[in-house]
């Protein structure tokens, strides 16, 4: 397993146990996170911290599964599914997604999420506010 993949797995584990500070520690200070490709990305840790807090308030991420992964230099591309419980609508969503994670000096520096936001859009938009 590559060092970048180890970081990715640790990042996911931090998310699963709700450890936002550990999650943020694995990201670069000049991070760029496109949680939605049609919105402005998050570019700093205070905003990322707020996003995580609001996201957790809106969703219970019950599973985050990587089905397929490929690496190219300091980039990992993944295909997966996350099982989200939408607290507001009280529904369980299978969010099928792909994601690009770029690394710099052992930290996660750029993330871009691809999914159909029609399935999760209303609470996700609130989570990012």
């Amino acid at each position, binding site marked *: 397993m590559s060092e970048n993949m180890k970081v990715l797995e640790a990042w996911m584990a931090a998310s699963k146990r709700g450890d936002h500070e550990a999650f943020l520690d694995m990201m670069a200070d000049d991070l760029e996170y496109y949680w939605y*490709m*049609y919105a402005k990305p998050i570019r700093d840790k205070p905003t990322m911290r707020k996003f995580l807090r609001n996201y957790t308030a809106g969703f219970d991420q019950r599973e985050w599964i990587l089905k*397929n992964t*490929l*690496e*190219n230099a300091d*980039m*990992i*591309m993944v*295909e997966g599914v996350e099982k989200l419980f939408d607290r507001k609508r009280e529904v369980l969503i299978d969010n*099928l*997604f*792909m*994601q*690009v994670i770029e690394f710099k000096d052992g930290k996660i520096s750029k993330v*871009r999420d*691809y*999914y*159909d*936001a*029609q*399935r999760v859009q209303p609470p996700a938009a609130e989570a990012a506010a």
Partner: protein
Amino acid sequence: MSAASDLKDVEPRIDVIHRLQQAIAAKDKDAFLAFFAPDVEYHYHVGTRPLMGREWVEKFITKYWANNTGATWVIDHYAEADGRLFTEGREQYVNADGQTVSHPYMGVIEFRDGLIAGWRDYFQMADPNAGK
């Protein structure tokens, strides 16, 4: 010579897709279809019912090319291994209403015996910028 006949197992998958892009740009339907396995499972949008088989792909692409003009498919990043290619990019086109539509996307393309046997594209079907 068909586009598929000169596929080689050793050819980088990204190069195969670049040749597929040329067939698309030329709207050469026979060349386009020659890249696909007869039993291809094509999810042009994950979350929508997939196209099963090359004949269904032909019906889809005939309608798609009729309704969308000036399509440009750009691949920004990719990774490949073990007969699989992941791509990240965008597609821009002008739809039947004259609107320019741009879709950022990621996709998985799976090969078997040099042909595309599986394809899954992830993006938001409804463009939030349409009409703005």
